[in-house]
C-alpha cells in the first residue's frame, strides 16, 4: 500500500462553506483538496438551491438598500431562536458578514441589483445573480484557477481525527476539465489512465464542511420516528451526515437537538429529494389549512408570511400521516407566487374535498364554520390587517376571508426538510470541541455541520449562507495557520 497523499488542508464537503474555506486556505498558501460527495453535475450541496446571504452593512450599496446594523441583525437572530444562541459566535458571524460582498466578488460571484425581485429583503440580504448554483460555479472555477484539487464522487468512508486523514470510497474522481491547471505535487488525477485512485488522504489540518444529515432517512427516523417516512428532502440527496457521525463517534461535542431543523410546507407531489425552491407553497396565509381529518390545526394568518414560512414544516409534521391541505378560493388565485404543480380545482368545496381524498361532510362543515367566523375587515397582505375570525380554535388572526368564490383550489402539503441543526460545537477559530471541553487538534468545522452553535430553533432568511461564508473563511484561516 502506498503512502497516503498529503495536503496542508483537507476539506470534507463541496458546498459554500467548503469552498470558502478552501479558497481562503489556498490564498494563504496552503495546498488544498476538496472532497465533494456528489458527482460534478450535482456539486455544491444545498448551496446550489440557495439564493441569498444575510449581511450587516452601515450604508446603502449597489446591491443592498438602506443599512442593517449589527445590533439589529443580532436582535433578529435572537427573536427567532427564543434568545438562545452562542452570543460570541453570533456576534463574530454578524461582524464578519460585513466583509462578505467584497470577498465574494473577488472570486467572481455576482449579485442582483437591489432594485428588483428581491422579495422585500433587499435591505438585509445579498441576492446572488442566477442563484446559488451560479455562485458555486464561480467558486469552483476560482478553485480550479488557483490550483485547488477537487475530487467528485468522493465519499468519505472513515475519518481519523488524530491523523487528520480520511479514507475515501474508490469512486472518487479528480477534476476533469479542459482548464485544469498542471498537476502539482500531491494528488495526481490519474483515473483517465485507469489507475485506481489512492483512497487515503492525509492533511496537516482537516475542515469538516459536509452539511447536516437531512438526506439520511434512517437518521431522521431516529429523531422523528415513522413520521420521517413522509418527509420530503428539499435539497441534495448527498447530505447523509457520515462525516458528522464519524466526528461524534470520535468524541466531538454535539450541539443542538436532533429534531431541530429548517422545514417548510412543500407540495406533497414534490420529488423525494432535490426539489429545491419550486415546490414551496406561498398560499397558506391566503386560505385555510386542513389536516387529514378535515380540521384546521394552526393559525394560518399568525404573522407576515416570510416570518412564518419556516414554521409550517414542523406544523404539518405533527399532523396524522404528516399531510395537510391548503384551500384557497378564486380571490387568492393571483396573490401568491405560482407553484410548479397545478392546483387541484373544483367548483364546490365538497367536490374539492372528494378530489383531495377528504371527507366532504367534514371539510364542508369546517369551511362553513370558518366562513361564519370571519369578521369584516380591510384585506391587505402587506400588513397585519384586521381580517380575522372570532370564535374558532385555532383562530385565523389576519387575512381571514370567506372561502366563497369558486373555483376552489387545493394543494396537498408535506413537511419539506431543508437542513438540520444538530452539529459540532466549535470555538471562535472553528476548532471542533471534544465532549471533555478541550479542542481537537487541527480539526475544524464550518457551515451547516456547525450551524447549531448559532441556530437553535428558528431561522432567518439567508443566514445559512452567512454561516457558510464567514465561518468557512475563518476555518480556512485557522487550518492554514495550524498546518504551518
Amino acid at each position, binding site marked *: 500500500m502506498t503512502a497516503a497523499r498529503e495536503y496542508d488542508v483537507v476539506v470534507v464537503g463541496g458546498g459554500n462553506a467548503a469552498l470558502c474555506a478552501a479558497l481562503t486556505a489556498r490564498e494563504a498558501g496552503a495546498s488544498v483538496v476538496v472532497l465533494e460527495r456528489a458527482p460534478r453535475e450535482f456539486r455544491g450541496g444545498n448551496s446550489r438551491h440557495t439564493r441569498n446571504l444575510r449581511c450587516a452593512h452601515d450604508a446603502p450599496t449597489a446591491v443592498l438598500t438602506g443599512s442593517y446594523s449589527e445590533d439589529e441583525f443580532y436582535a433578529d437572530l435572537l427573536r427567532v431562536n427564543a434568545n438562545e444562541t452562542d452570543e460570541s459566535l453570533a456576534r463574530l458571524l454578524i461582524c464578519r458578514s460585513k466583509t462578505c460582498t467584497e470577498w465574494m466578488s473577488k472570486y467572481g460571484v455576482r449579485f442582483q441589483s437591489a432594485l428588483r425581485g428581491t422579495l422585500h429583503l433587499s435591505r438585509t440580504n445579498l441576492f446572488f445573480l442566477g*442563484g446559488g448554483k451560479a455562485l458555486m*460555479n464561480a467558486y*469552483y472555477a476560482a478553485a480550479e484557477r488557483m490550483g485547488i484539487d477537487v475530487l467528485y464522487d468522493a465519499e468519505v468512508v472513515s475519518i481519523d481525527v488524530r491523523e487528520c486523514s480520511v479514507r475515501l470510497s474508490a469512486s472518487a474522481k479528480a477534476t476533469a476539465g479542459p482548464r485544469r491547471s498542471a498537476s502539482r505535487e500531491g494528488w495526481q488525477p490519474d483515473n483517465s489512465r485507469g489507475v485506481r485512485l489512492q483512497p487515503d488522504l492525509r492533511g496537516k489540518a482537516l475542515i469538516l464542511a459536509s452539511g447536516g444529515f437531512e438526506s439520511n432517512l434512517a437518521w431522521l427516523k431516529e429523531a422523528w420516528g415513522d413520521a420521517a417516512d413522509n418527509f420530503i428532502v428539499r435539497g441534495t440527496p448527498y447530505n447523509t451526515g457520515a462525516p458528522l457521525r464519524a466526528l461524534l463517534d470520535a468524541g466531538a461535542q454535539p450541539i443542538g437537538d436532533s429534531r431541530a431543523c429548517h422545514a417548510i410546507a412543500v407540495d406533497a407531489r414534490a420529488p423525494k429529494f432535490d426539489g429545491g425552491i*419550486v415546490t414551496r407553497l406561498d398560499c397558506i396565509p391566503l386560505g385555510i389549512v386542513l389536516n387529514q381529518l378535515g380540521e384546521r390545526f394552526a393559525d394560518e394568518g399568525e404573522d407576515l408570511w416570510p416570518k412564518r414560512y419556516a414554521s409550517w414544516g414542523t406544523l404539518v409534521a405533527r399532523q396524522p400521516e404528516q399531510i395537510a391541505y391548503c384551500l384557497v378560493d378564486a380571490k387568492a388565485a393571483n396573490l401568491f407566487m*405560482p407553484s410548479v404543480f397545478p392546483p387541484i380545482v373544483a367548483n364546490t368545496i365538497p367536490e374539492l374535498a372528494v378530489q383531495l381524498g377528504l371527507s366532504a361532510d367534514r371539510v364542508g362543515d369546517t369551511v362553513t364554520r370558518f366562513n361564519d367566523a370571519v369578521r369584516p375587515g380591510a384585506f391587505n397582505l402587506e400588513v397585519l390587517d384586521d381580517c380575522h375570525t372570532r370564535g374558532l380554535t385555532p383562530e385565523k388572526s389576519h387575512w381571514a376571508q370567506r372561502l366563497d368564490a369558486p373555483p376552489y383550489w387545493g394543494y396537498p402539503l408535506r413537511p419539506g426538510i431543508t437542513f438540520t441543526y444538530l452539529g459540532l460545537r466549535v470555538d471562535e477559530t472553528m476548532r471542533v470541541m471534544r465532549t471533555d471541553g478541550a479542542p481537537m487538534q487541527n480539526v475544524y468545522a464550518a457551515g451547516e455541520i456547525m450551524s447549531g452553535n448559532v441556530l437553535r430553533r428558528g431561522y432567518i432568511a439567508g443566514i445559512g449562507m452567512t454561516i457558510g461564508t464567514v465561518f468557512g473563511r475563518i476555518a480556512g484561516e485557522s487550518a492554514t495557520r495550524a498546518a504551518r
Partner: protein
Amino acid sequence: MPLADLTQHGAHVMTVCNACRYCEQYCPVFPAMEELRTFGKADLAYLANLCHNCGECLYACQYAPPHEFGINVPKTLAQIRVQSYQDYAWPRALGVAFTQRNLLTGIALAATFSAILALTARTLSPIDHTADFYAVVSHNVMVGLFGGVFLFAVAAMSVGVIRFLHDVRQNAQHSDWGLTRGQTRGQTPVLFRDILTLRHLHASGVDCVSAEEHRAPWRRWLHHCTFYGFLLCFASTTVAAIYDNVFGWRAPYGYASLPVILGTIGGTGLLVGSLGLWNLRRRRDRALTDETHDGLDESFLALLCLTTLTGLALLVFRHEPVMPWLLVVHLGTVLALFVTLPYGKFVHGLYRAAALWIAR
C-alpha cells in the same frame, strides 16, 4: 420534437422557471415570464424571441439535466424560436419548404439564379475594360429583378411580424398580464438602444457564455460586424441607386467613391462577422443550442459570406475578362439571399425587436 410536445415541454420549462425565478435579472425573458401564469403557444413564441441564447441561465439552473425536471431554457427557447419563424412565415408553405436542408437550399438557389442570369445575359465575353455591368445584365432587368425581389421580401417579412405581434397581443388580452402591461411605456429610445447594441446579449453586465464560467465578448462584436456590415453594404447599394437614378452617374464608381468605400468597409465587416460567428458557434457548448438551428444559421451565414466574397471580387476584378462571370454569380447570390431572407435566420432580428417592443 413534434409541435404539441414542444409547446407542452416549453410550458413545463416556463412553469418551473416561474416558480423559481432565480434567473430574473439575467435578461428580459424572465420578467416577461413573471407576468404570465400559463404558457400557450403564442406566449412561448414571444418569450423565445426575447431570448438571445446568452446561456447564463443553463449553467445557473439547479434543475438543469441530469436533474429530473430537465430544464434547459436556452435550448428549449431556441427550438420554439425556430418553430415560430416557420409558423409566422408568409406564405407559410415557403416557410416550411425553406426550413428543410437550408444550407443546400441556399446554395442551390444561388447557383440556379446565377445560371439563369448567365443564360439570359447580353454577353459573357468581355467587350472592353470599362467594367460596364449593364453591358452584361441590362439596367432594366437589374432594377426590375432586384426591386421586385426586395419588395417581396419586405412584404413577406412585414406580414410575418404583423402576425406575430397580433398573436402575442391577442393572447395577452386573455390573461391577467395584460393589466400590468403599459406601465413602463414611453421608453422607445431605450428600446432602440437595446436593439442596436445587443444589450441583452450581455444583459447581466458581462458577456455571454460559450461554456460554464467562460464569458467572452466575441459573439456580440462579431454580430455587430455582421449587422453593421450588412447595413453599410445596403447603404452602398442605395447610394449607388441614387447616383444612377437621380444624378445619372453610371457605374462603375471609382475606388474613392462613396458606394465603393461603404461597400468595402461593410463587406469586410460582413466577412469577418459571418466567418467569425460560424467559427464561434462550432466551439460553443452544444448543450446551449438546438440542432434545428444549425441549418438556418449556416445557410444565412453562407449566403452572406458568398455575397460578400463575390462582391469584393467583382470590385477588384471588374476590369478583367472574368467580370461578367463574377457579376452573374454575385447577382445570383444576392437574389438567393433576398429570396430566403423572410424564411431564414435574418428574421430573428425582426421578431426579437418586435418582442422587445412588446416587453418594453
